[in-house]
């Protein structure tokens, strides 16, 4: 897959300072426009953010896409022996040029949190009904309803079974019921079906989300661990049609 680093470089500074302050009005009962040029009269907006909560609707990109996850203090993830062995196997394969070991090489879904680190913009659509993450990369979307304690009995999937709620001003997404076919990151950090993921999103300013992801998987790690990243708003961009099966010949 062609990383869009070049595009990211030119996209990141393109954040329109002009709309700062218009993008998110905490506690406001209606959506504020996230796109310059969006005509508020052109369409009725029936779906509203939950009252009294920040609105994350808009286009975002991870400022540190790709690469390998570290803990919040910059340390190594606490892999157990099984985790270390599997990680070493993947690292060795990648080093030897065997990129087919990477599940995304056959266009499978990225899994969570890796999807959030893809070097492509994504759309967060936060409504009274649910929260959707719509990613440019291989037109992958997550459909997350409001609630807590998602059921681990759901069929295992690439993106897991997720529920979202607000903890104060922080959007919290809890996910369970993952299959074991994805990597946690681009470097090959492993996980199994016992994986649970908690994402936490807090608006630092209208253009910036401070985010963290906590990984719990007793089969591959000695303890839960947390990594942090930053999302920047991308008002000037539009999501392109990205079809992995088309651009990525197997």
């Amino acid at each position, binding site marked *: 897959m062609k990383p869009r680093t070049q595009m990211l470089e030119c996209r990141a500074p393109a954040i329109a300072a002009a709309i700062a302050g218009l993008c998110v009005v905490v506690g406001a009962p209606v*959506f504020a426009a996230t796109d310059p040029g969006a005509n508020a009269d052109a369409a*009725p907006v029936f*779906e509203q953010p939950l009252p009294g909560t920040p609105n994350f609707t808009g286009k975002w990109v991870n400022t540190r896409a790709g690469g390998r996850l570290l803990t919040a203090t910059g340390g190594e993830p606490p892999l157990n022996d099984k985790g270390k062995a599997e990680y070493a196997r993947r690292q060795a394969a990648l080093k030897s040029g065997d990129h087919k070991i990477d599940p995304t090489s056959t266009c499978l*879904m990225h899994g969570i949190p890796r999807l959030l680190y893809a070097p492509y913009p994504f759309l967060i659509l936060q409504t009274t009904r649910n929260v959707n993450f*719509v990613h440019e990369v291989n037109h992958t979307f997550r459909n997350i309803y409001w609630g807590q304690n998602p059921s681990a009995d759901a069929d295992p999937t690439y993106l897991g079974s997720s529920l979202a709620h607000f903890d104060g001003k922080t959007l919290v997404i809890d996910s369970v019921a993952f299959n074991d076919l994805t990597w946690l990151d681009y470097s090959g950090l492993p996980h199994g079906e016992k994986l649970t993921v908690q994402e936490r999103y807090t608006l630092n300013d209208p253009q910036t989300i401070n985010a963290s992801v906590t990984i719990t998987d007793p089969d591959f790690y000695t303890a839960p661990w947390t990594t942090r990243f930053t999302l920047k708003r991308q008002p000037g961009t*539009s999501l392109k*049609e990205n*079809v992995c099966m088309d651009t990525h010949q197997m």
Partner: protein
Amino acid sequence: MRRSAWLAISFTLIGTVSLAQEGAPPAGPPQGGDPAARAAARDKRSAAEAAEWNKNPAPQDPRDFSGVWWTRGYDRTFRPLSDHPVSPGEAASLLPLTPLEAASRQHHLDMEKAGTPIADAPTQCFPHGVPRLVASPYPVQFVYSPGLITLLHEVAHNVRFIHLDGKPAPADTPRTFLGYSAGHWEGNTLVIVTDHFNDRTQIDEESLSHGLQLKVTERMTKFTNRFGGVEIRDLITIEDPEHFTKPWTAERLFPWRGDIHLAEYSCEENNRNAPINGISVAK
């Protein structure tokens, strides 16, 4: 949710969806007894269905389509809407085919009959194209945000963006599987005009093709059927002077489904149709 088993059953029972009149119940299996009894049984099923699907009610405002909708059954063809019931053969005869498309369509039919059907884009996990996607027997969620309606289709995680900013497609808009969609409201009807298509998808699964000049205009209107069920009627006008002698309009109905959420669908996981021996619609 085990969609595949459900669909297999629904294909068997429902088969081809008719050009439904407003409030018409889904076609059911043939039953014995007199016509009035059969109609009463159908009505009872339709009422039960509407009650189940309305557990979480559809939005009240006629211009609010937000939520999940799911077409009934599966019809692998698009045919011109007619004002009276017609047989499948008659419906096909109403297609305004150019000589190019008539030959292309016959080729599709012949290849399928020979057991070597022509690969349709979704068989290789490419986006379905429009209106091909609209016929897909999987649910779709409408999501509203300022200046944009996003259509999330369960099938092969297709995503359509309907731009409501009132602007034409940007000059550098590429040709894509799903094209560029611009929407506006005419009263309570959402009108979506889509163009900038590539020529690698089909109009329908059975036989109809299109070229780069394809333009699709959808007119979506919400209504309540006589059983209290809410539906979107989508009138789909297809224009492509290379393939059709005049614009023609097909119809699809999407009942409200307050009882379900979209499931994860990975076409890529089970993709057995990757290009082999150069037989492919891949570039």
